[in-house]
């Protein structure tokens, strides 16, 4: 499990995605191949905006409540991520900003997984 996680930390710790210079679409996670332009695509890696808004969300009620949201970043890129805040604060349309957070660990002796979550932007 370690290599599988480790090789993606660049994209999990920070919001790096891809941008296709041919069609102007952004993707997160980054793609090697633009699914819209296919062979005509010119894909490069870019840093995505730090902020966006909540399009929809759910509060998972198994154990500690956990907010998982579909977020649209300010350049239109969409991402599924966790919101790190009181579940009662969350509403559709709220502004959010990225934050570096702990996601969990692979058992007691496994590595600790960190990644990007979002917090209220104000």
């Amino acid at each position, binding site marked *: 499990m370690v290599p599988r996680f480790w090789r993606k930390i660049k994209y999990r710790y920070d919001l790096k995605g891809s941008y296709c210079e041919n069609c102007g679409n952004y993707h997160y996670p980054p793609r090697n191949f633009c*699914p819209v332009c296919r062979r005509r695509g010119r894909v490069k890696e870019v840093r995505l905006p730090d902020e966006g808004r909540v*399009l929809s969300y759910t*509060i998972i009620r198994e154990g500690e409540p956990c907010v998982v949201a579909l977020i649209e970043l300010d350049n239109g890129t969409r991402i599924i991520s966790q919101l790190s805040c009181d579940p009662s604060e969350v509403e559709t349309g709220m502004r959010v900003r990225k934050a570096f957070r702990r996601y969990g660990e692979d058992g007691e002796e496994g590595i600790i997984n960190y990644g990007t979550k979002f917090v209220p932007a104000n």
Partner: protein
Amino acid sequence: MRRVAVVGVGYSQFGELWERGFRDIVLEAGAEALADAELEGKEIEAMYVGNMSGGRYLGQEHIAALIADYSGLAEFGIPATRVEAADASGGLAVRQAYMAVASGLHEIVIAAGAEKVTDVGDPMEILSASVDMEWERFVGGNLPALYAIMARMHMESFGTTEEDLAMVSVKNHRNGVKNPKAQFRREIKVDDVLRSPYVAEPLKLLDCASISDGAAAVILASENVAREITDTPVYIEACTQASDYIALHSRKDVLTMKAVVKAAREAYKLARIEAKDVQVAEVHDSFTIAEILAYEDLGFSEKGKGAELIREGITEIDGDLPVNPSGGLKACGHAVGATGVRQIVELTLQLRGDAEKRQVDAEKGLALNIGGTGATAVVSILGR
């Protein structure tokens, strides 16, 4: 391409079958289908098996050979192939069998679907492997969470309510009472759904289909052979499949299952009918919102107006367009890889007039089987 008919159907009890193993339930379904077709078994030329995750649910791979063996077909050495597309695996097995007969390669083929989920592992966690594990599941987006995100967006965009979603579950439970093989054979009320605990808001426990043990089998034959075998062939007039981006965040419109729209459009064209000609449907209500989305993406209603069908009683068993007379995934049980085959069994029984207490009056039926959050869709249209 040749016309293909369903000549025999069978399925096991669905539910938590603690006393029966994987081989037992597959055999029960297969034997029933053979008896229904009045075949011995040696006439079967090939087998396709829909199974999502034998490896994780049972710790057993090589499922197709195992099933061929325990159904007594190893003796004849027929080709046996497992196909996988999460919980659309069963629909895919039917489609593979359909193509094998339609193409002229085989005359009689069996499609089976089977899953035994109560032996090893957490059933919902394994079913959630149908989503993007690295970029959805890693951040907490399991299957209920992703459907919940769709549900909330549908409610906020179109005014669908938690009561509307509850009514889907209530309807399917009411139908399940009439199905002797259904897992849940008791009626529930809208209040029961609304008072059940949240799994992933706004979806509650009774909005979610249970993940069950179960197996189903259908025997398909070319038109000429079907006419010799049976007086009541039911024809597969279309069996189409489409795919979509696996993760919700890659889809431009999260509330349209593009794979369903595409598969349905192609199926209607092949069957030379329109959505309004469908008289009975079995759709993939893994979560109540999925049935509402199915109404819209199959063209039974406009986008955003799916809830009207449930509010107006149109999809009730005595309505203009009965949906899920079997009880659907919610009440019959969602036996993952078996579900898509079980849907074809139900439509066949309905079109033949063999559906007993849940019989509806129909000549054209449609089945929709979905993998995960809609990255695979299989649409079948049957007619008598």
